[in-house]
């Protein structure tokens, strides 16, 4: 599904991602762990197409297409979803209306019929229930004044509505208390299937107790310094990241 080959990317001339390779197949869950500042969010934003980051080398192939040449909105329409570490607040945009617009953008792209507010309401109600979200969040403005945890839930709500093929969840666990973490993880597990793939970015292994990764990669100073199966996460939990530093 996704082939990342020796990807290099940075910001205003400074290289942050220094040659990352990843191969992700449908049905897989990959965890990317690493200390603060190691480049995890940068990787996520580059995959989603953030205009501030410059790709300086390597390639990213998504279902046979060169992802780096595709506009962010087209990436989304092709099934890529990014759950932001810091979801943006947009006052004045009604949450439910925004969710419906996003849903309909996908529908139109697939040649399907747009849903009116009433029909969309059924979907929204079901997904919000799955995530134990109170009704008031549909009337609120998009992430406006939401707590950290509420924002993260709202990200997963969007994921549940958009049913992506590849989701990149950037520190979705931070800001969630233990109950919310369980609810959100259950939600993600329900969305997960043999047809879609998941990249979980986190620096605690807590989330990985709820969503079982197939592979764990450790990112440090812009490169993957170690890859393994899910036991690696436990090792990291016990020993921290210090023993893993880039060799060059």
């Amino acid at each position, binding site marked *: 599904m996704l082939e990342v080959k020796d990807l290099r990317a940075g910001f205003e001339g400074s290289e942050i991602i220094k040659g990352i390779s990843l191969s992700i197949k449908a049905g897989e869950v990959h965890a990317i762990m690493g200390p603060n500042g190691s480049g995890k969010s940068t990787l996520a934003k580059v995959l989603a197409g953030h205009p501030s980051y410059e790709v300086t080398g390597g390639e990213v192939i998504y279902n046979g297409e060169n992802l780096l040449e595709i506009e962010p909105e087209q990436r*989304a329409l092709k099934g890529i979803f990014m759950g932001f570490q810091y979801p943006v607040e947009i006052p004045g945009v009604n949450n439910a209306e*925004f969710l419906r617009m996003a849903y309909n953008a996908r529908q139109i792209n697939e040649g399907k019929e747009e849903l009116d507010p009433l029909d969309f309401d059924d979907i929204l109600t079901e997904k919000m229930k799955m995530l134990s979200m109170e009704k008031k969040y549909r009337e609120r403005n998009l992430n406006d004044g939401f707590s950290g945890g509420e924002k993260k839930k709202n990200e997963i709500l969007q994921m549940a509505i958009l049913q992506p093929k590849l989701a990149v969840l950037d520190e979705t666990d931070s800001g969630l208390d233990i109950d919310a973490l369980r609810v959100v993880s259950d939600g993600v597990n329900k969305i997960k299937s043999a047809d879609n793939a998941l990249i979980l970015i986190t620096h605690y292994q807590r989330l990985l107790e709820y969503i079982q990764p197939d592979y764990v990669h450790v990112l440090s100073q812009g490169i993957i310094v170690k890859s393994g199966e899910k036991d690696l996460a436990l090792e990291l939990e016990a020993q921290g990241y210090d023993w893993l530093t880039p060799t060059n």
Partner: protein
Amino acid sequence: MTTTLVDASDQAESALLNLHKKFMSGNRPPEALVPLNEAAIQRFELLKFPHRKHEMYTFVNTKELVSTVFNLPGETVVSKDFIKSHVYPECESSYLVVVDGILNEDLSDNSAIQSSINLVPLKDAVDQPEIKEYLADTIEKENDVFSAINTAFISQGTLIDVAAKKQVEAPLQILHVSTGSASGNVTSHPRILVRLGELAEFKMIVKYVGVQGNYFVNSVMDILVGEQAGVTFSQVQEDATDAWHYSKTRVQQGRNSRVKAVNAFFGNKITRHHFEAHLKDVGAELLLNSVSILNDAEQVHHFVRIHHEAPHTNSTQNFKNIVNDKSRSSVDGTVIVNQGAQQIFSDQLINNLMLSDNAHADNKPNLMIFADDVKCTHGATVGQLDENQLFYLKTRGLSEKVAKELLTKSFAESIVQTIDFPGVVDYLENTLLKKLEA
């Protein structure tokens, strides 16, 4: 060089004095108002038209307006359908139509609130010492030449009196209609005075429209808010594009009174709104929000002076302007905290969104504080759309065009949503916000 400038403005001043003579001798003003007309024209002669660097007109070029020759409007019939199309649903039986500054009772319907408010023609209202003194006092202190001109040309004017403890359920809409002119230019001077007694509650929607262009509407509204009284109002400026709109809202707030004003501006040749508030007694609270959306060469200028004259008063202001094409907006806003007025809270925020390199948005937020125990903040931004917000929406599959439109609308929507009248909110979403669709 300078002599020709002086000449031009001298000419304009004598043209206005001539128009005033015509107005007085045509015997349009009732006797009881003549002393006000006379005092105000004297005030005008003292203040004179603003020269280029006048501190109240830093961002407003009045040259074209001042050098235009105006006549007084003739009688024009305005159709009931035209009126109906501008009355908001919540005011179906509570609206007053003011045509070129004159209340038109045939076109008005205030049956829903007839028993809760008192409409008094200004000529009778001046029999009340409080009103007479208030008007005399404001003429003497008037520093805005255009408001002085308004008073000089009052031929009617209406006092809307809300008695103590009266809670008026339905909002009152005042619809100011300028009939304009097919050729030449006309000017009108609507004048409204609103007075709320102690503990009274009142809601009001003021709307400005034009039947056709070629006019200058120069309006003044005074709002006297008694102790513990509350007024919520919205002004919608939607004049003809080919017209000038100057207006002044002057608010006097008593102890523990509340004023909430949310205004929306469509702009035209030049719209200038002067908002002056006096928080005169302990506990007075003011919220002033405003949104403008401007295309082409439209202009909207705000001149705001908030006077905190007593301790424990607070004011919050939030201005949002969207400027596209060659349009211009400005906010010149000062909060003044008088000596001895302690425990003041004041917040003023001005945000401008520039959609074109040729558009202009000027800001002059200012604080003048003569007390020490106050919490005053102010800020102004001028910017384009936020890149991170745009990216966020795109990652959800929204196209660049849709995402930009949504963000631009949301910028304005955050003010529109603070309007307490659903009919007005609906209307603005379908008209003002539609100006953003290319």
